[in-house]
């Protein structure tokens, strides 16, 4: 359990949020031209990093807006929170 600083609402308990997995996985521009391997990579394969990871979260029991987070998965420390569409902070 940790506190998340929602970029729209400010600090709230993590239980108000839902995790949306790894961030910055770009949806393929021309899906019909993808091979099965490329689809599998896009749909299923994840970095699942132990350490600093970029991920998506949604304030599901609050403003319901999506945003991005940089979090250390080994100790749940949050390094940065930024809005959708913004450039991720450099590590």
């Amino acid at each position, binding site marked *: *359990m940790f506190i998340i600083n929602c970029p729209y609402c400010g600090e709230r308990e*993590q*239980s108000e949020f*839902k*995790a949306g*997995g*790894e961030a910055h996985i770009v949806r393929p521009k021309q899906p019909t031209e993808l091979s*099965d*391997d490329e*689809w*599998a*990579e896009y*749909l*299923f*394969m*994840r*970095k*699942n*990093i*132990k350490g600093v*990871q970029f*991920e998506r*979260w949604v304030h599901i029991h609050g403003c319901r807006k999506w945003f991005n987070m940089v979090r250390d*998965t*080994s*100790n*749940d420390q949050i390094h940065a929170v930024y809005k959708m569409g913004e450039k991720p902070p450099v590590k």
Partner: protein
Amino acid sequence: MKNKYSIFSLLKNALTDHENWQRAWRDPEPKKEYDAIIVGGGGHGLATAYYLAKKHNMKNIAVLEKGWIGGGNTGRNTTIIRSNYLWDASAGLYDHALKIWEGLSQELNYNVMFSQRGVMNLAHNLQDVRDLKRRTHANRLNGVDAIWLSTDEVKKFCPIINTSPNIRYPVLGGTLQKRAGTARHDAVAWGYARGADEMGVDIIQNCEVKGIKRNGDTVEGLETTKGFIKSKKIGVVAAGHSSVIANMAGLKLPLESKPLQALVSEPVKPIIDTVVMSNAVHAYVSQSDKGELVIGAGTDDYVSYSQKGSHDIVEGTLHAILELYPIFSRMRMLRQWGGIVDICPDASPIISKTSIKGLYFNCGWGTGGFKATPGSGDLFAHTIANDEPHKLNAAFNINRFVSGDLVDEHGAAAVAH
């Protein structure tokens, strides 16, 4: 040669103040090279080494464990064993394991305290009733024992359950697998370790893998905290840390690692003589031989390796437990902990070769790997020894995420994942 454990060895050692017990396994330094190395000294890894030595005559094997054996998820689960899965592939896999459990204490000469006390799954709404009935039919077609219980039969089988129609999630019935039950999880790791050690397997604790050496598409060995160890066959059974190891070989897996929590109460006199699981409200409960209630909660939805988990998950589980078992309202919880489970998108495991020759992965067991320990070890050993999967784990290959032939047990396995 290990001394046989028996009532006579117990008596003999009791007379000498238990000071002369033989070591259950050695503490060797790693050799320069092995025919096969298993990464991860949990139940699955030790079982893999045991069956490689026993059934495939590979004696020059090492098991590398970064901490102590059985200190990860093997020692953190709620010890439930069952095989009532919906799909044919899963039923085959888990019932294979259950059949080995039934003779495991004798085979290992180590009491794993396997207790076939039955596992009951409760239905709380009409869709649960339909799904669980469908599952009992599917189970029986696959030769897995399963029966449907009405609300009255649930009450008769486990009298402390509140079957009032006025609770928020009333009990509308349930399924029962009588061959299912629990086992002592530490004993499983120790029993396999002792058995493997006796056949010459080196169990190397406090040895963390730091890198995987490859020559093109073939593995050559492992960089570890105890130096480089050569091997042409490497089987990784690292549970929550599977992605970390895969990353060392430049592989990506379809896994997310999340905290799963459990807790135990103070010990009390026998009150519940079966295992009751409830999918809809996510509450599992059984009672250990020491008398503690063993309660399983759900996973957090975010990736984390912190072995902690969130308080609200535990709170939700305890709410459900208290509504179903009002008798526990004044029980005090003694301990709570988390383990890191690696979950596949289809909630089924991977027991598979990889695109790198000689590198095998056994992972993705998610929240339910303990029950499969003997079967997983047996099938993974077969896969490593023959460089081909056994027919029971062929469906659990990593290529199913490319072909789309998923074994979608999410929600179908009678538990929420």
